[in-house]
């Protein structure tokens, strides 16, 4: 591939690529993102390829292995073009039908379509599925349309035209001004204005300066950066190159965690291809601007996502935060000005340059513009990646996009912002999702984790879970973070074990305040958020644990018991047989009794007891009734002949 030396050559190449592609040629796009791969997408691809071969269709049908379109709940996702018919939960066995019916006979395969769980209506196209319909997919929308290993696919969709525009029609100052005007804010957590950070880095003294992609995504359950880097790596590269041009940097890093092998593979291929085509290297597109990118593989530590820790790690040292009274934009990697932005932030840049800041500011709220990708997980029907405009309500994200809470359960809270975020209760569901509103509610945008919780989740346990995570993931350098988390975790553990004491809530609040005010980095300063927000919104649950030794959600094992109501037990033997601890005594005609000493509180008996009996009860905060006398346990069956 000869290097492209000018924007005109790029357009010529693009036309060439597009003209060689027949828009009517059928294409089977199979998601091979990490989620679908785990569900066997690679086997689906092999099966479809075999079928195509069997029918001798190799030249007539394209098969594309794409990035993640977000609907991981229903993987493997397959989309048939040009009709854009979306098939879900596709298995290798479905390959024959897909090729013979969907491709050859041009028929829709009903059983693989999306079925609305409430209305039972089927949706044929991706755009008709409520999960997608209510999103605004500016960043991940292209994932299903392109093979991340193919630069031509990206070019066919208009890729690198923003770079060409920036380099040929705009000065670095103009690019910076456009990004500043767009009001783009950092998608990695803090929401710092991107334009301001770029300007600070650009204006900092020194010759060499760096631009860095933060792909050290570490929040439990969050995978939006992964999906972007795996599914559309060139969009991130393009943003980074444009940013480097604006800032005056000639060296860039992509800091990606080693645990993301596919992201590393795809972005490494993308860099190589971009170098071949002349989007990276010397004299990019004939503009005289030089820029190279290195991939730095991180050893997967949550704290390394913090900017100063990440930069310390790039230098080859242990990824520990250092004080940032002087911003890393001024003094970062090797004490040189370093501009670090999140994957998603960089991916927004080409859109802003192509379509303009005015277009971008038309989306979102007063203080938060554009879209945000969330990892919607937990107790919600449609888990996956969702991209929504800023300002959408939490209710719309959870109910319209997410399809509500499964199993007819009641919504309790949504946790946003990862381990440093907070839990937002039902009464706040109509709040708008943006940086400032989430912060006002005691949580934060974070990098976009969104964990939905239903009535079966205990908020003390949630706080304990996140503090436990942070006690492992804090670097351990400064006292307030390390020791504050240690002591808060101790108190929370005690509360959840029924050893809570009067004054524990106040003690947690005091520790939270110190941790927040005195810690060295943002990890420590936000570590108490899960504690503070759960105390704020669910104080009664804490009090029930402490005062009544009761876990209202029946989660904390030390505070609950299972009990078989002798009036309801029909001695059906189901729970007795399934109890893994052998803790249930009884017989065919003998009412069952749980040996509280042996019971491990796994809840199996509660789950398997037939609904029509409903004999197994959960008890918390009150004593278990004594077992009924042996002689009263015999059940006299009314209709013996039926047995």
């Amino acid at each position: 591939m000869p290097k492209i030396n000018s924007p005109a050559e790029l357009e010529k190449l693009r036309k060439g690529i597009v003209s060689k592609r027949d828009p009517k040629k059928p294409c089977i796009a199979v998601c091979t993102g990490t989620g679908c791969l785990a569900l066997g997408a690679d086997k689906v691809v092999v099966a479809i390829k075999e079928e195509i071969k069997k029918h001798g269709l190799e030249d007539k049908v394209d098969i594309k292995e794409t990035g993640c379109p977000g609907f991981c709940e229903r993987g493997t996702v397959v989309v048939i073009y040009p009709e854009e018919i979306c098939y879900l939960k596709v298995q290798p066995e479905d390959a024959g039908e897909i090729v013979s019916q969907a491709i050859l006979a041009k028929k829709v395969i009903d059983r693989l379509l999306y079925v609305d769980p409430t209305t039972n209506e089927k949706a044929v196209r991706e755009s008709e599925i409520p999960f997608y319909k209510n999103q605004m997919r500016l960043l991940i929308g292209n994932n299903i349309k392109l093979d991340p290993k193919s630069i031509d696919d990206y070019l066919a969709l208009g890729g690198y035209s923003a770079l060409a525009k920036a380099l040929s029609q705009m000065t670095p100052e103009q690019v910076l001004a456009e990004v500043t005007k767009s009001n783009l804010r950092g998608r990695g957590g803090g929401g710092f204005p991107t334009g301001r950070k770029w300007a600070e880095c650009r204006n900092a003294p020194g010759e060499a300066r760096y631009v860095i992609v933060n792909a050290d995504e570490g929040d439990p359950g969050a995978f939006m950066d992964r999906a972007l880097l795996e599914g559309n790596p060139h969009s991130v590269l393009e943003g980074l190159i444009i940013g480097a041009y604006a800032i005056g940097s000639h060296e860039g890093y992509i800091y990606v965690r080693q645990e993301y092998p596919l992201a590393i593979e795809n972005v490494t291929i993308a860099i190589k291809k971009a170098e071949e085509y002349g989007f990276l290297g010397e004299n990019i597109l004939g503009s005289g601007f030089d820029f190279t990118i290195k991939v730095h593989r991180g050893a997967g530590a949550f704290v390394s996502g913090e900017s100063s820790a990440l930069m310390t790690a790039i230098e080859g040292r242990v990824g520990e935060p250092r004080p940032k009274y002087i911003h890393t934009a001024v003094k970062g990697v090797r004490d040189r000005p370093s501009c670090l932005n999140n994957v998603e932030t960089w991916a927004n840049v080409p859109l802003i340059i192509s379509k303009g800041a005015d277009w971008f500011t038309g989306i979102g709220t007063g203080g938060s513009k554009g879209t945000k990708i969330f990892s919607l997980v937990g107790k919600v029907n449609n888990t996956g990646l969702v991209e929504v405009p800023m300002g959408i309500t939490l209710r719309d994200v959870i109910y319209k996009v997410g399809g509500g809470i499964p199993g007819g359960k009641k919504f309790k809270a949504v946790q946003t912002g990862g381990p440093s975020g907070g839990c937002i209760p039902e009464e706040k569901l109509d709040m708008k999702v943006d940086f400032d509103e989430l912060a006002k509610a005691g949580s934060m945008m974070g990098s976009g984790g969104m964990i939905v919780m239903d009535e079966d989740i205990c908020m003390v346990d949630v706080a304990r879970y996140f503090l436990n995570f942070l006690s492992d993931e804090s670097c351990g350098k400064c006292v307030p973070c390390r020791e504050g988390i240690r002591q808060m975790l101790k108190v929370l553990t005690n509360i959840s074990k029924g050893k809570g004491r009067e004054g524990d809530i106040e003690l947690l609040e005091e520790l939270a305040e110190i941790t927040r005010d005195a810690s060295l980095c943002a990890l420590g300063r936000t570590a108490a958020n899960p504690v503070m927000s759960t105390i704020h919104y669910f104080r009664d649950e804490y009090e029930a644990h402490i005062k009544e030794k009761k876990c209202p959600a029946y989660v904390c094992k030390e505070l609950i018991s299972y009990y078989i109501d002798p009036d309801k037990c029909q001695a059906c033997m189901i729970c007795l047989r399934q109890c893994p601890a052998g803790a249930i005594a009884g017989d065919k005609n003998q009412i069952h009794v749980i040996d509280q000493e042996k019971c491990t509180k796994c809840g199996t008996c509660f789950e398997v007891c037939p609904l029509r009996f409903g004999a197994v009860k959960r008890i918390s905060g009150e004593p278990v009734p004594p077992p009924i006398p042996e002689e009263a346990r015999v059940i006299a069956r009314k209709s013996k002949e039926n047995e």
Partner: protein
Amino acid sequence: MSEITLQIDGREVKAEEGMTILEAAQSAGISIPTLCHHEKLEPYGACRICTVEIEAHGRTNLVAACLYPVEQNLVVRTRSEKVDKTRKVLLELMLAHAPDAAALQDLAQEYGADKARFGKESSFCILCGLCVRYCAEVKKKNAIGFVDRGTRREVIFIPEITSKECWDCKECFPLCPTEALQATFLLTKALMSPSPPSAPESEE
């Protein structure tokens, strides 16, 4: 170096650009407590006991005096209700590890910290890192290091380096504000010494 004027505890203090609040305060004879600070070592900012309150850019903030660079017209309060409260709890958190360490005791008295507020933790070490940093920065031997992270972080002697470098040095010992370092050293020494010869096995 341009001269900067700032206010510490209501007094006008002159400092040079690039100095920290701690250095400016010390030069004016104003005392700020420290634990992990050492003049021969790079500022570290781990113990946070030097936390002071500042007013800058229209906001009040708590910062570590050992790290925060002086600015023109910066207003610093080395004592306030908030600062004292913060130091008290920080001391209590550290006293859970080393309840009888002299360096902590003196401060505990001043700030009213209760050494038994939190249950005794198993390690005496408060992870001030003086030993680790002194060995790395002054002695350039790196015989001591941190292992693990979060609440499991600890200081260890690296046997391969210790066996060569430490016997005649031990300059880190007096730096340790608790008894932790010597204990760690003794443990390392014990682990390094050859095990007693075992009784000959009589298998033949």
